[in-house]
Structures are given as C-alpha cells and as structure tokens.
C-alpha cells in the first residue's frame, strides 16, 4: 500500500536515486584511473578487480535493479502526473516560480536513459560478450583501456558523452537535495549543508565525467 501511494512512489525514486548517486562516485573513481599515464595498466587492473570480485559481482545485479526500478517508477509517476492535468495552460510561467532542472527531470532522465543504452553497448557488452578484439595488456588483464582510447578518438561519441553528461549534471543538480526532501529529511540545520554538498557533488561528478572523453579526444587530434 505504502509503495503504491503518491508519496511512496517518491520514496522509491529517492532511495534508488541516492543509491545511483553513490554508484556514480565509484564509477567516476574508476574512470579517472584511465588518465594515469601507464598505458592503462592501473585502469585495466581495476577493471579486472571489478569483474572478478564477488561483492562487486553481486552489487552489479543490485545496481541493475536500482536503475530499472528508478526508470520504471519514473515512467509510472510521470504518467500519473500528466494525467493530473489533462488540459494545459495557455500561458506557462513556470520559470517565475521554479528552476528549469526541477521542471525537466523527466526529459533529463530520458537523455540519461538513451545515453545509458549506448554506453552499455559500447563498454559493458563489449567487455562481457564482445569478441576477443580487446586483447590483453602487459599485465595480462583485458585491455578495456584500448576501447576507451579508441572510442574517444571519434568526435560523435565524444560529443554524445559530453552532452549526455550535461543532462546528468542538471538531473543531479535537482535530484540530490530533492531525494532527501522526498524522504522527509529537511531540517534548518542540515538542509543547507545537503544542498551545498549536492551542488558540489554535481559539479565534481559532471566535470569528472566530461574531462575523460574530452582529454582522450584532444590528445588524439
């Protein structure tokens, strides 16, 4: 009953959102290893660890569940919300009372979803089910680093990744602090800190994810 109410659905959105926020930290940390100038040995060693560690393997399923629940729930919530206003206003002055990101979480989420499909095909499926084109590096680990470098030599991919990261950035800009409020966590003492950390997190994560494709594109020009 609780999880099918309008508030309950938002608890689910908030909890899965915060979980995905924590995942992005791990993901970005790993990605930044590709910038270490050792021909990708550290990056590939990290990839190997992520591929073989039991805890990470289990978490991979939890992560997929987190994404799927977050996405499906957002579709349900959006449909209910759209049905709540069958006839639209002739004049819309939303910008006078709310931020652009807060009004466009669905569109931003869709951008992230489209990116996610392409991104998983590029790297995740390449690593898991791709043919052995990737080869091994000097340490004997699968050379995913090669895939990173080759992907970001291409302008369309680099541009797509950067645009998608802006979508992610705006989604997080609203989503971080919003998740806390959906769970009822709002306090005069702690909320300003949550909002500040949310914005700092968003800037660092967005910039971090943009720097990597941009760097690899620029050094290969």
């Amino acid at each position, binding site marked *: 009953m609780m999880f099918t109410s*309008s508030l309950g659905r938002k608890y689910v959105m908030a909890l899965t959102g915060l979980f995905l926020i924590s995942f992005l930290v791990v993901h970005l940390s790993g990605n930044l290893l590709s910038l270490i100038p050792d021909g990708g040995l550290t990056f590939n060693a990290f990839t190997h660890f992520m591929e073989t560690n039991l805890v990470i393997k289990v978490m991979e399923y939890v992560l997929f569940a987190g994404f799927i629940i977050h996405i499906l729930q957002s579709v349900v919530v959006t449909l209910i919300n759209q049905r709540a206003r069958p006839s639209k206003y002739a004049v819309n002055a939303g910008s006078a009372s709310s931020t652009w990101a*807060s009004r466009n979480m669905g569109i931003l989420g869709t951008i992230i979803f489209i990116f996610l499909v392409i991104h998983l095909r590029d790297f995740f499926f390449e690593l898991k089910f791709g043919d052995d084109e990737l080869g091994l590096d000097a340490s004997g680990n699968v050379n995913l680093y090669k895939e990173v470098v080759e992907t970001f030599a291409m302008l369309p991919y680099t541009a797509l990744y950067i645009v998608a990261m802006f979508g992610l950035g705006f989604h997080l800009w609203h989503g971080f602090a919003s998740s806390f409020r959906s769970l009822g966590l709002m306090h005069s003492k702690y909320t300003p800190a949550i909002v500040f950390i949310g914005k700092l997190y968003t800037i660092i994560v967005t910039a971090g994810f943009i720097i990597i494709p941009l760097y690899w594109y620029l050094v290969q020009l």
Partner: protein
Amino acid sequence: MNLTLKVWRQKNSSAKGTFETYQLDNVDVHASFLEMFDVLNEKLINEGKEPVAFDHDCREGICGTCSMVINGRAHGPLQNTTTCQLHMRHFKDGDTIVVEPWRSKAFPVLKDLVVDRGAFDRIIAAGGFVSVNTGQAPDANTIPVKKEKAELAFDAAACIGCGACVAACKNSSAMLFVSAKVSHLALLPQGNAERYSRVLNMVAQMDKEGFGSCTNTNACEAECPKGISVTNIARLNREYLAASLAAQKK
C-alpha cells in the same frame, strides 16, 4: 489604463472552453483585479452578453475563494497575494492579460473561471480534523504547547485552501495543501492522538482525487498567497513514512 483581456470561457464542465478577447478601457489603477472583472461584467451585461463567471467571497484575502491564473501565475504576479488583493497598478497601460481557471483533473471547471474544489473538502473530511466530544470550551493553556511548535502549527494553519498550489504545480499536486493541514494538527498535542490515521487517510483521499505527486520544484510555495512553506511537505513525507511503518496489519 486600457487593457486587452483574454479570458477563458467555458459554458459548463462538459463543454469545450475557449479564450475570448475583450477590450476594457479606462480601468482604474486602484481597482482590484476582481473589481476590474466587475467592470468587465457590467459592460458585458449592458451589451446583452453573458458575464464571466468567477469565484469570490470576502475580497479581503482571507477566504481562499478567488482563484484565476493570471498570465500563467496563480493569483497573479505578486508574492503572498490573493487575486482579490492584486491591484491594477501592478499592470501597465496597453497590457494583454491572459486569465485562465485553475487547471487540474481534480478541480473540474464548472463554468468559465469557476472550478469545483470539492476535492479539498473530501481530503479534509478524510481526516483533517480533531475528533473531540463537545462540551465546555477548555481553559487556555490547560495543555502546554511549546512556543516554537505553536508558531509552526499556526504558520501551517494560515493555509486558506484556495488551491493555488495545485494550480501552480506542474503535476497538479496537492502536497502543499495536504501537508499544511497535516502539519497544523500533527504539531499540536490535541492532534496527536489521531496523527497516524489522519495522514494515511488524507493521503489516500488525495491520491483518489487524482492529484499528481511532488517533484520538489517549490512552485507551490512561490505561488501560495499565504506563504505556506515547503518544509510542511517534508513533514508530510516524514509523517506518512512513520505512519505507514507503524500501521498494524489489517
């Protein structure tokens, strides 16, 4: 001042509405927005046309009856102001003003700018009260109430139930209204006994009425004529979570 008004006209709840354009000249800058509509209606009546139906009662900014979305803003462009307290001096000569009704599935248009806000009454009837046996009025301060809590409860109680939060929300969510009513009673000892059943029943009724959910855009707070804070929405989320977790199996 001379104005061009684009007003939503709709015969009844099943009719398809449309905008009608009216030219209104020599509008007094000191007239309230509703008085300006009175002048328009007088003109329409004199011309043998149907006057524009709109809701109003106290015209003192306290009853919550007047509505109108003015140029896309619930109750118009001013902060903490109802439509009846909005004056024409806040508009410019030659302005075109678009006036629409609250638009929400839960607030069906009855006629022109009049909507049925019965959904709010049904939410209140579902639990927005304190059940007490009638008797003598108790002495003040018989039950001690912390000053800070009394202030917060009073702030929430300032909600006049006008529905601007629903009108302003991109999801037609009634969260600000329901949260104000839940907060008002949950913060006071008198409301504490029915705290959990109240929030569960009111939220259930809110969902049944077809309001959307909260995206935390804060548009409701910005457009609320009584300045009801979104901290009440956070409290509603908290109350509902606690009530859901604590509820006994039926």
